[in-house]
Structure formats: C-alpha cells, structure tokens
C-alpha cells in the first residue's frame, strides 16, 4: 500500500492563528521532510472565500512543493474540478505533470459549499454534469495529465470513476464495511465498462505512544477540527452543523470512531485491514490546524514504524 500524508490546507484559524506566507514557506520544508521520510505523496486541499485563508488554488501550491522535491508525488485532496474550465485545467495539469516529471496526483471532487459555486456563477445543481464533462475532457488528454482520483462515495462518484477507469479516493469517515461496499461498487462499474479502477482511501490519522492520554489528546484535536469544519459548512439535513447540534456531535463522533489513532503497531493492523479490503493507496489526514509541531513527530513515527511494515504496491 502506498502511503501519502495530508492535508496541507494552509489555514490560519481562530484556534491556531499564523502568518499565511510563513505557512507557504513551511509547506516547502514539510515537502522536503515528507520526501526524506520516504512517503509516497503529500496532499493539499482546496476551499474558497473563508476567513482562515484555506488554499483556493492547490495546483499553484503543488507547483511550489514539486519544485523543491525530486521524487515525492504531490496530490490534490481534493481539487474542485466543476468550478474550472476543463481546457484551462488541462493546460495547467499537462504543464505541471510534464514539468515535474510526472509527480502530480489529481484528486477531484464536487465540493458541497453553495457559496463557492455561487462565487463562480455556477449553479450547484449542475456540478455533477460539469464534473462528467471535465473528466471526459481530461480523459481525452491521456498520459499528458496526471492520474485522476475521484473523491466521494456517492453511487454517482463511484460509477464515474469505474466507468472511466480512474481512481476513487474514498472519504475519511467511512467504516470498513462501508469502504468494502464502495470498493465493490466502483469495481462493478469498472468491470461493466471493461476497465479497472484504482482504490484510494483517506483516513484521519495520528500515531501515538500507545497511551490513553496520547490517544485522548489526538482525538480531542480531531474533534476540535471537525466541530468547526462541519459546524460552519456541512449541510447536516439541510442546515449548517452549528444549527443542528445533535447531528454535529454525531458527525464529530463518526470522525473519531473511524480515525486511525493509536500506536504504530495498531496503525499497521488498521492499514492492513484497509489493504485487505482493496485499498492500494491511503492518504493519512493528519489533522491539526496551522503549524502544529507535533505533526512532525507523528510523521516521523509513521515513517519509521508504520510504512516499513506494510506491503509495498508493486510498481
């Protein structure tokens, strides 16, 4: 299984204020560190028009990370493809893929925030159709563009990835049975089209020393992250999370219950279970806003004691 790490969101939050240019400078140092630790990939995220400066243009940030590394892959987890003009994105992807020696991984998704679609003058109702059209266009460019990973787990997303023979990038909060069902759906769609589908998974994760206190700290950090993220944005039965406190707490619990948090040995077992379910690639989403120093410690622990214990993906 290939292990990537993420997500570099470049957020300066109320809980962890930071200087944005310093965060972009740190991205370069982090990319070098992640490469030196032997990870397959580093993943960036995208959102728009938010108080915390969430990176709205991950391909631009990816270009900087690719420029300071030589073997590390850099991915988007995810790029809101329906917001874009497919021809221009195709140009950008082709340029960056060629310029980086083929080290870009293109995770795409629909997104969900109406404000982002409205900013670009696009009806949220047509995002699926725009995604289909963009993927068709990019598929026509062949190897000139990077491998695509379709984010999400809706039947439409799984069918889309399978039909076009792309990859799926399943979201963090799925349980193992849900992942197995989604993988089967994607593979069925691919088989029906005479293609194969690559399987990727994102997972909230943190490596600890195995103690209960360390686990509680990591889960507390995840909950803090998820409460603000889901509270402000997630439409929980049609309303923002903060207006539906019970649903929000359920979402926070779901994130904690499905996270990979524990000692390196425990993470190895959990990742092997994902590999047995069919995952070829896992992006470990190490939450923690801003410039959390502990993030480097968990990266080193995973690199030293988790990745070497996993079976590599044959090249």
């Amino acid at each position, binding site marked *: 299984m290939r292990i990537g790490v993420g997500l570099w969101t*470049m957020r*300066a939050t109320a809980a962890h204020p930071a200087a*944005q*240019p310093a*965060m*972009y*400078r740190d991205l*370069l140092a982090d990319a070098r560190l992640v490469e030196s630790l032997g990870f397959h990939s580093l993943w960036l995220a995208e959102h*728009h*028009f*938010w*108080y*915390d*400066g*969430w*990176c*709205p*243009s991950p*391909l*631009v*940030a990816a*270009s*900087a*990370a*690719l*420029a*300071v590394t030589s073997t590390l892959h850099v991915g988007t987890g995810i790029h809101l493809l329906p*917001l*874009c*003009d497919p021809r*221009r994105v195709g*140009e*950008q992807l*082709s*340029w*960056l893929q*060629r*310029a*980086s*020696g*083929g080290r870009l991984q293109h995770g795409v998704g629909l997104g969900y925030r*109406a*404000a982002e*679609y*409205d*900013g*670009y*003058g*696009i*009806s*949220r*109702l047509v995002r699926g159709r725009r995604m289909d059209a963009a993927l068709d266009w990019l598929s026509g460019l062949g190897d000139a563009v990077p491998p695509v990973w379709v984010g999400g787990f809706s039947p439409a997303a799984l069918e889309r990835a399978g039909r076009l023979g792309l990859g799926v990038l399943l979201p963090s909060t799925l349980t193992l049975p849900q992942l197995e069902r989604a993988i089967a759906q994607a593979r069925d769609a691919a088989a029906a089209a005479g293609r194969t589908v690559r399987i990727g998974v994102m997972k909230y994760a943190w490596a600890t020393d195995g103690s209960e206190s360390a686990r509680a700290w990591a889960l507390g950090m995840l909950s803090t992250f998820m409460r603000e993220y889901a509270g402000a944005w997630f439409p929980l039965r049609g309303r*923002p999370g903060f207006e539906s406190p019970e649903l929000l707490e359920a979402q926070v619990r779901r994130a904690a219950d499905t996270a990979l948090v524990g000692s390196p040995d425990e993470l190895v077992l959990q990742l092997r279970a994902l590999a047995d379910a069919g995952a070829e690639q896992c992006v470990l989403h190490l939450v923690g806003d801003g410039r959390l120093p502990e993030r480097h410690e968990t990266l080193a622990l995973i690199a030293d004691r988790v990745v070497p214990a996993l079976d590599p993906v044959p090249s």
Partner: protein
Amino acid sequence: MRLGVVLEGAPGVAALQSLAAQACAAESVGLDFAWLAPEAGAAALLAASSVAASTTVLRLVARVAVGAHPLEIAEAAVVAENCSAGRLGLVLESVGRDRDLLAETTDAILAATSPRPFRHHGARWRIPANLPENEDHEARLAVTPYCVQPELPIWLAGPESDGVARERGLSHVSGAGESAEDAARAWAATERALGPGARRLRRPALRAVHADADGDLDDAALVAMLRAEQRLWDVDIAVLRLPAALDDRARARAMRRVASRVRPRVVLDALPPGLEAYWDEALA
C-alpha cells in the same frame, strides 16, 4: 532603472529545474525581476510559485492572458503571491483587441485581491452570482488568503491596454514589438490624464535582446538603447527577453553580463569620465 529577464519554459520534463536554475542565476547576480510566461499561458502562475520556491529576493512577474474567470486568476495569484512571500506582480494581457474583456477582468481582479469583501456586477461576470438554486449564498465575497503586499502590483499589456490601464491608474507594459516613440506617446497621454498621479506608476518595458549561443551579447548597444528610452519616456523597469534557444548555462552567462556591464550604466543619468573605461579594462 531596474532590470529583469524572461524565464523561458524549457519544453520537456525538466521545466521546474530549468526555471529554478534560470531564476537562481538571475537572483545571484542581483537582477530585479523574473518574468514568467510559459508556453502554456494558463501555467504562468504555476511557474511563478515554483520559481518562488527556489529564490528569496527576486521579484516575479507572471503574465496571464485574460479570458479565464477573474476569480480563478485572482485566487491563483494570491496563492502564488503567498508562496513568494510578497514578491509577485501580475501582468494581465489583452486577447485580440477585446478592450471590454481586459477592462472587466482587471476591475474584478482589483476588487478580488483587495482585503475587502466585494461584489462585481459586469457585462460578463456577476460575482457572487446570487443564483437562487445556490442556497445560503453570500452578498459579497472575500478572496483569501490576502496578498502579503498591501496591494498586488497589476500591470496591463497587449493591444488596448494603455487606455484601460490609464483609466484605472495602473501601469501598462510597453511590449517587445512596441517602439520607444509609441511608448513615449502612451505615457505622455497617461501624464495628461492622471497629472501628478502618474508619478507613482512604474514604467515597464519588455525588450528582446540578441545574444549568441554562448550567451555573449552586445552590452554597449543594449546600454545605448536603454539610455535612449530612459531619456525619451523614463522607462524604469526593463525586462529583457534573451533568445529562447539559449541553454541554461548560456542564459546565466548573459544574465551575468547584463548585471555587471549594463545595470551599473543605467542607474544614473551620467557617470564620471573614466569610470566606464576603467570597468571595461578591469572587468574584461
């Protein structure tokens, strides 16, 4: 006068390394600007952020042809600007002679790159659109992250750009195909229109420079040309386009020559007698 060079996007798989090598060569000899306009026009801001990662003080100028959604350009620009810790400027280039497209794109990007929530209602774009099916939409948007600089430098280039720039109090770039006399006429018009306000505008020019395959160039002719343009229309930023076929080594040699033999000669109006002869002898 400040001097810069165009970084050529090397075709093939080594473009990031080649751009970094060219940029480092420019930075190491103290040139002021690197101009990025790769063959794939949509990739200029990608190239800028990659070059920013390899440099620390070199200022970057990304030339982007208008036509894309202004938010796409603005958001890519603010991320590249943050990657460069505030060293980026943006050149918006007109497409064909579509003055309205350049004007509306410029207006929307000026608004989007300011640290104020904004809305833009133009002939082509309505930002935010406030479409009824987009629930919970905003009346105004803020593009984040903010620029590091108090204001993103925006210059305009291409056909019709001088008039559009003048109306907005922006600089326009005298293009490589434009004569010094044309530039002088355009800037005289800007001075008439803006009065003292024209003094705060930089006067950039893009100029092609001949060099042989080893990177040797006729620096005396280049100095003469730049001094003439200085006298005629007060050009204060010259971005030099070296032949695209030069390899990175020859390009670096040409940049060093510009830095050591041209730059010292175009800072002041005149140099004391004997100094240039001394340089010619001592630096030969």
